[in-house]
């Protein structure tokens, strides 16, 4: 009975949503700020990847908020799960262990690459951070008894987040608005360009990596470990 009612409501909702979206202009967006950003970004920010210019420049505060949300989720996760829980489980087989050992440096490099080229190519701190987290999580699959050092993770978390804020505050101390990009833009498309954006992305990458790694570690801990 409840399911039928739910289905009816869902049918109604999809119909209404389709009616509403059907009236929208697809593929021809007004782009009021999009156009402006496209024109201004190369000179104002200097990042070849305009999405990065938006993420770290025009909407830098959103990114800080986003980092904070991840941090909040990790903190809340820690609060919910507690942190002193044991891990057990059989170590992985030879292939898994060797594969992990081989993959680990590669993923590390790949992650860092994605992070550092965020202002030039698709990718960036978030994407790279996830790869980094995966890189650190892989060994846990292979050797469940060895735990990642939470202390280090939380130090990286804290410092990376603070670094992001510090870069923003630096602009404030110079008398400009919070999160104003610092330094010279450099040459469009060069690795060292677009001012402080790569630094910001590095902070983002580290923070996301540490955050996700600690979340994954907590989630993968044993049920029997606590209460």
């Amino acid at each position, binding site marked *: 009975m409840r399911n039928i009612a739910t289905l009816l*409501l*869902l049918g*109604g*909702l999809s119909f209404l949503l389709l009616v509403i979206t059907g009236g929208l202009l697809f593929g021809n967006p007004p782009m009021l700020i999009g156009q402006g950003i496209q024109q201004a970004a190369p000179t104002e920010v200097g990042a070849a990847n305009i999405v990065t210019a938006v993420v770290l420049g025009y909407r830098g505060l959103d990114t800080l908020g986003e980092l904070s949300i991840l941090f909040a989720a990790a903190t809340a996760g820690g609060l919910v799960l507690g942190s002193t829980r044991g891990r057990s489980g059989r170590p992985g087989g030879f292939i898994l262990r060797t594969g992990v050992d081989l993959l680990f440096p590669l993923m590390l490099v790949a992650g860092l690459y994605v992070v550092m080229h965020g202002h030039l190519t698709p990718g960036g701190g978030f994407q790279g951070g996830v790869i980094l987290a995966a890189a650190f999580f892989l060994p846990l699959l292979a050797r469940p008894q060895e735990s990642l050092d939470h202390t280090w993770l939380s130090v990286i978390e804290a410092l990376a987040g603070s670094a992001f804020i510090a870069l923003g505050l630096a602009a404030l101390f110079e008398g400009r608005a919070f999160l104003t990009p610092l330094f010279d833009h450099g040459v469009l498309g060069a690795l060292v360009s677009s001012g402080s954006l790569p630094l910001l992305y590095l902070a983002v990458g580290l923070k996301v990596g540490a955050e996700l790694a600690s979340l994954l570690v907590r989630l993968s801990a044993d049920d029997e470990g606590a209460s």
Partner: protein
Amino acid sequence: MIGALDMLLLAALAAIPLSALFATTRSGRWLLVAAYAVQFGLLIMLQPATAAHSALSFQLLGNAVGWQMDALGWYFAVITIGSAGFAAAYAAGEWSEVNGRLGLSLRWLYAGLQINVLAMLLLLASGDFVSLFIGWELTSWAGLILMLLAGGDAIRASLRYIVYAIAGGMTVFAGLVITQAAVGSLQFDALHAAAPSLGTGRLWAIALLFILGFSVKMASMPFHLWQAPAYAYSPAPGSSFLGSISARMGLFGIALVAIKLIGLAQLDRLSLVTDLVDLRGLLTWVAVFTAILPTFVAMRQNDARLLLGWHGVGQGGYMLLGVIIADRLGSAGGLLHVFNHATYQAILLMAVFAVIHRTGTADLNRLGGLVTRMPLTFLAMLIGIIGLAGLPPMNGFVSKWMIYRALIVDGHPLLFVATVISTLGTVLSVYKLLHNTFLGQLRLEHEQIHEAPWSMTVPMLLLCVVVFVTGAAPGLVLQYVAAAQQAIGLEPVRYILGGIESPTGSLDMLWITAILFAGFGIGAVLFYLIGGRSRRVHQLDNYAGGHFLTADVRYQYSDNFYAGLMHRIRPWYRGSFEWTESALVSALGAASTLARGFFEQANPAQWVLVGTTVIMTWVMWYALG
């Protein structure tokens, strides 16, 4: 700068902490009685002829808020402070000591009494709708303090009271904001000036909301259920104070807003479709039914306090009736009845509480024969019930006579008959009260009862003097009633010291009293001349069927009083109002369960879907429509 009104209000305010401080010692309590005397003196010094303004005034949220007291407020204020003073004196002596030992908080009692007085003074001295509402709400909540003190049944009664009171207060609140929307101001003058030009719809809304709200406090039908238990279960001084004056604040409100501000001419514009029924006609019938039904409910009560409480409700109907008729004689009668009722109701409640003080019960089936043990209390109650029943020469007769007279003169024979029926019920039931308490067989367990202490009897007897004197010389009070009538824009009654002077029929109580006493005197003289002798016998010196009866034989049963009459009218007591009330509460409970069910759904996300879909449908429908 500080006017007489400010002095009065300040004195009332200052007396609150004093009450809390001094209420625990006997001398301290007498000091507090003196404080009431001071307040009364300050009030008398206030010249009510022209409205006395308070120096206190604010500009609050764009409204000028101030206080002023005209003759109407002054008249009610006299009764208020007087009742409080007598109540405080009644409890100052032994009563407080005994009840304090039993765990009653005397500090709260006396402070609560004083808070009530202050709240009522603020209400009576309101100068605009904001101060009116402030006073109104404070009065409602202050009453709660006195009601809650007794604990037990009183708590349930006061919970019921507060729901009614908040409902009434919120109705007044609605009237207030609608007045503001219609008139653009919360000043009394603004409504008075704008009332003639208001459309009938708005006028209906304003008049009805205010009158309904004030009626709840008056316990007019159909809001009458709360009052008797709420007032009756309060401790003695609280009960006598609340019973005397508290409910009359509603009458004050109606007189002020409906009669003075909206005006009779405007009220008469308010008629239902066919002009057959208009608001005032409706209200007169409400008033009459309020006079009749609670009186007959009172007749059935076996708790003396509740019996009196129900009478209080019924007498409110008389006052409303007089004020709504609003001619020279009727409105004077209604207003005079406020004073008269306050005096005799205070006596009756004090007498009942004196009996409770000595015997520990107010159950009319467990009392009887106390006349020899508590003669002064008996005397007080006798005078009180003569007043309540509206018989000469006590003051209740005068006000009721004026109301009857007005009904006849104005041509309301049906209403007149109805009020007579009510009076009949009153006479019957007050006799039950007197009989079951003081007459008949004394109970064994009450053998050793003594008269109530002087601290309790003296206030009662003083009030008896007031009842008698204002009964014999109603002109003493009528001069203030006439001033109050003028203050609300009615024609003042033409009074003489002994009563009323009018072309259609005058009343001179001095003559009536003189004739009455002359009659008694002649009778007594004749009796003794003929040689009649009276002999004093012991109360237990009885025999029946040739047998002497000992004290332990019950030969007189006071329950099932008026068996024949009650048998006749039993079908009328159907409890429809109680039923309606509990049905409303049950409906509220059902709605509440529904609402709870809404919040305790297994899957909370359901409501996101339902809400979104319904709202989207509304949006699309809105777009199409």
